[in-house]
């Protein structure tokens, strides 16, 4: 079977993967009682989630989704 994925699907996969990674970092840091945990949460988890959301928003405005020009 030929697998076919559009650009938006690839971006949603990427955004989802980044968000899952960010959420897992958040989950781990919540169980860890140390100031370093906050740093990891903010710099690693926060960055992964921000990039993930950014990729998703980018997928919404990507040229592929625009209606064809008349």
């Amino acid at each position, binding site marked *: 079977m030929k697998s076919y*994925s559009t650009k938006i*699907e690839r971006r949603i996969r990427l955004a989802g993967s980044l*968000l899952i990674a960010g959420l897992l970092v*958040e989950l781990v840091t919540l169980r860890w*009682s140390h100031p370093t*945990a906050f740093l990891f*949460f903010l710099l690693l988890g926060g960055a992964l989630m921000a990039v*993930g959301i950014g990729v*998703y928003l980018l997928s919404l405005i990507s040229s592929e989704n625009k209606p064809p020009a008349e």
Partner: protein
Amino acid sequence: MTDNSTILVAVILFSIVLIAYLVIRPSITATRGGKMLAFVALLVFPVLAGGMGVNQHMEHSKTTNFCLSCHVMEDYGKSLRVDDRSFVPATHFQYGLVPRDKACYTCHTDYTMYGDVNSKLRGLQHLYAYYIGKPSQPIKLYRPYNNRECLHCHLGARSFEESEAHTKDPQALSRMKLNQLNCSTSGCHNIIHNVGQLKEATFWKEPAK
């Protein structure tokens, strides 16, 4: 685990499940329902989980255990249990004048409009000093301790307002309230953590609950 953190963990796990479904089947976003699911799973829930996470970390960073989890703070934690009433933090901790689970934060936050934010920014400064810079030896406050933090609780209390030591000089109380006469550096309550004296100190043992 508190109720809030249980809810947060549930939100995170639910978000992960929703996002995983989209990662496995991204083609569902071609439908109207799929688009709505993607919006909720990839934007609404992560923002919610992130915001709740920040709040949870902020609350957790107010705990005494959190502050004492850095080994540079160990002696300061020990000083809370010195069996000597002249040690100001020890008296506050042992006599329940501050909540024991938030003892450090209660005295070291700023009681101002943005006090919480300022104290957390100072916390980040501690991390910078610890990992990148060099913590001063012995550890010092970044700025002189403000009477405002003491007065947050003591102001108006009879024990404070009518104390013989505070009323002997008629100007003393008003100068204290204006932070012109510092409680901790004018020779009155100057035994604070004094970690250098811990070797000779005896310690209070908290009775088992």
